[in-house]
Structures are given as C-alpha cells and as structure tokens.
C-alpha cells in the first residue's frame, strides 16, 4: 500500500464519525480524573489577579517597547531584533492569553479576563465568540474524531502542512476566510454545530469589528506607502507565531484518538522559563485538560501533586519533538499507529472502556 492509497479519516463535525462518536458514547463522555482531595483542589482553583496583572503589564510593556524600537529603526537592520521580539509577543503570546482568559481563569476579576480575551482574540486572528465555543467542545471531546474542532494533526498527517503552521499560513488563511464569511453574516454548518443559535449574531458582530480594524491597518499602509503599520498590526501573526506552534503542536500530536483518558491523548513537557512564560504554563497539558479550572499559575503545583499518576513528562521541547515526529512519520503509512506511553507503577491504569482500537499496535515510550 502506498501513502497515496491511505484514506484520510473524516474529521468533519457533521459526518459519519460524528454520528459514531455519539452512538458509542465517546461524545460528552465521563473522563478519567486523578483523585485530588476536594479541599486541595478548591485551593488550587482559587483565582488571583496578581500573577496575571504582573504578566500582562510585562507583556504590554515589552510589546510597546519592542514595537517602538522596530518602528524607530525601521529601514535599518537594527529593527530586525526588535521585530523578532515584537513578533513573538504579538503572534505567540496572544494565543496563551486568549486561551487562559477564554477559560476565565487568568484573573479573578471578570472584566480583566474579558478585556484581555478580546485583545488577544484580535491579535491571534480568532473570532472571540465562535472560538470560545470551539474550545469548549475541544475540552468536552478532546481529540474525539468528528467532534473536536481543534485537532492539529489529522491522520495520516501532512508534515508539509505542519511546517507551514510555523509561519501561520494555513491557520491564518482559514481564520481569515472564516472571519470574512462571518463578517458577511454566514456561519458554516460546523460552526453552527458547536455555537448556540443565540450567539450567532455576536459572532458576526465580532468578525465585523475585527475586519474593520485590519482594514484600517491596510489603508494606513497604503496611505503611508509603507508596510510598517501592518508590521505592527496583523503581520506579526505570521512572522511571530512560530513559538505558538512550536509548543502547541506538542499538546496532542502523535497521541491517541477516541479515548477518554487525557493521559493517553495529551502531553506534558518540561520547558524553559521563557517558553513557559510565553505559553503561560500550558506545557502542563495533561493537567490542564484534567482540571481546566486550575489557573495557569497553579499548574506547576498541580503537576507536583498528581505526577505519579501521569506518564513521565518529556524532559525538553526537543525530546518531545523527536518523540512526536517519529510517530507522525510512521502514521503517514500507518494511520492507526499512535504513541502509548508507559505509566509509572504508582499510577492507576489507563481508562480503556471507550478505547475502540485496542488491537492497534502502539509505540512504547521513547527513552
């Protein structure tokens, strides 16, 4: 069998796999959770303004300083390092802030969550209404084929597409198309499958506001006959998103589909402090999916508490990539293959009852 003979699974949200997920009980299933005493969990879930206020001041301050530096030195090579920093702060940090504020866990004060959520949604080029619902579905049905709208690597994986993510081409193009469509007053059947009808008009309004701002930046560039305004608004989502995808593709890549145990389909990776700040600790991804109410600043404590029940984390981003890419390469010819990591002896067994592909050969942990 050649690679071209292999059929891509149907990942649409309205197809046969959607019906199958509902019929087998995979959709909206009860997921495995590590036991954590209620009093401890209640303490971990507590909201605080302090950490996110500090991080947001640093973020916006660095954004303003690097953007000003880039603009000041525009036309010389000195502007390059400024835009390198500005790009990551704009095009990558926005994703983690969008995510945490979308959960409502970044700040204790509700309006602070909402303000940063709206700002980050604009920067990351996502409709703030429809993506809130998309992400809710991702948490209900994590990597359930036919249900999860946020699966990055569909099998068999397309590695060229994976690389193009690093410059934002595919997702921004898709987001741009969706934004234009939404701004014109249209939602797709997939969008309608996870956004309640009462929210449709809000999604359309949000798309129109975003498009108006991007249009203003484009007009400013034309009037100034310079790309500088768009280097500051819009384009950083292309040239600065590499860190978002470097970390984000590791969340579920190469792991199991159609299971109800986040230890089988999510990955925790130890990362350097700078990446953890950019990513707001989402490297603790198994922990985040098991307990999405725990704020980003409490995830290291949660990890320390439950790590004996989880697969051993990857010790570095590089290690995680070696592990994931090996699996993705094999999945090109064997789409049923996935990485099944070894649990420590202290852990409870994987929850298997909905695991329909038990007979599938699985990789063991990479040393």
């Amino acid at each position, binding site marked *: 069998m050649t690679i071209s003979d292999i059929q891509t699974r149907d990942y649409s949200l309205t197809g046969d796999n959607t019906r199958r997920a509902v019929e087998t009980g995979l959709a909206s299933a009860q997921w495995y959770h590590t036991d954590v005493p209620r009093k401890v969990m209640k303490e971990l879930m507590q909201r605080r303004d302090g950490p996110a206020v500090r991080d947001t001041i640093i973020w916006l301050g660095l954004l303003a300083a690097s953007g000003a530096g880039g603009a000041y030195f525009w036309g010389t090579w000195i502007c390059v390092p400024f835009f390198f920093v500005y790009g990551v702060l704009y095009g990558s940090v926005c994703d983690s802030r969008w995510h945490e504020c979308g959960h409502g866990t970044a700040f204790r004060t509700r309006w602070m969550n909402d303000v940063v959520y709206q700002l980050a949604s604009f920067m990351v080029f996502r409709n703030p209404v429809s993506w809130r619902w998309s992400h*809710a579905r991702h*948490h209900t049905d994590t990597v359930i084929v036919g249900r999860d709208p946020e699966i990055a690597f569909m099998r068999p994986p397309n590695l060229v597409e994976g690389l193009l993510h690093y410059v934002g081409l595919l997702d921004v193009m898709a987001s741009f198309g969706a934004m234009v469509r939404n701004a014109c007053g249209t939602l797709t059947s997939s969008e309608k499958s996870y956004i309640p009808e009462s929210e449709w008009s809000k999604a359309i309004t949000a798309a129109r506001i975003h498009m108006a701002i991007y249009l203003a930046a484009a007009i400013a560039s034309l009037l100034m006959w310079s790309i500088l305004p768009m280097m500051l608004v819009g384009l950083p989502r292309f040239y600065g998103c590499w860190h978002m995808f470097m970390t984000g593709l590791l969340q579920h890549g190469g792991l199991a589909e159609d299971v109800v145990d986040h230890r089988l389909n999510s990955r925790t990776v130890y990362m350097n402090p700078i990446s953890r700040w950019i990513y707001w600790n989402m490297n603790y991804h198994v922990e985040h999916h098991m*307990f*999405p109410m725990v704020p980003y600043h409490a995830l290291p404590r949660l990890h320390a508490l439950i790590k004996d029940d989880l697969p051993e984390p990857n010790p570095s981003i590089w290690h995680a990539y070696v592990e994931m890419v090996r699996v993705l390469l094999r999945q090109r010819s064997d789409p049923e293959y996935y990485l099944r990591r070894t649990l420590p002896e202290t852990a409870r067994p994987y929850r298997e009852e909905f695991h329909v592909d038990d007979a599938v050969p699985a990789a063991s942990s990479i040393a």
Partner: protein
Amino acid sequence: MPWIRACEADDIDAEDVIRFDYNDHTYALYRSPDDQYFATDGLCTHENVHLCDGLVMDNIIECPKHNGRFDYTTGAARGAPACIALKTYNVKVEGNFVMIEID
C-alpha cells in the same frame, strides 16, 4: 412538596458546594460566604457535568469543565458557555440539618 433532609449544616464549608443525590436526581447544595444555604440542579445546563466539583466565588458557581457560570442564588446563567438557567430549590435549616424542598 416534601422537604428532604439533605445533610448537616457543617457538611458544607462556607463558600463551597456539595452533591446530594435523591430519587435518581442529583442536586448541588451551596453555602454562601455569609452562611446562607441554596440548592440547584446538580448538573451544568451546558454539558452533563457535576457542579459539585466546581468553584464557588461569592454567589457564583463555576462549572469545572468549561467554566460556565451561574448565580446559584437565582439559577441565572452568568457566563458562556452556560446559557440556560439552573433550576433552583427552596432550602431551609432546621436544627442542624439542611432541608431541601423537592418537587
């Protein structure tokens, strides 16, 4: 409609929630920061997730799965993805017991 003895008053910490099951139905019992007691249906109206695992902040209960928010004193939905209100139940404290009126 009968009043059912649900739990002892001290079974619920201040600003917290517990689960109470009765006749194949699940309820959530709350104790507010000022020591008043309330009851709602036990499952989030967005997905079938038990609210007893959620976070109580003042008069808000936040669902543990998607962070949908409800005012547990009225049942009103206060934040997406929660859009549909929770059903509430009358509650009283008799002696040291929390009683819930079940219809």
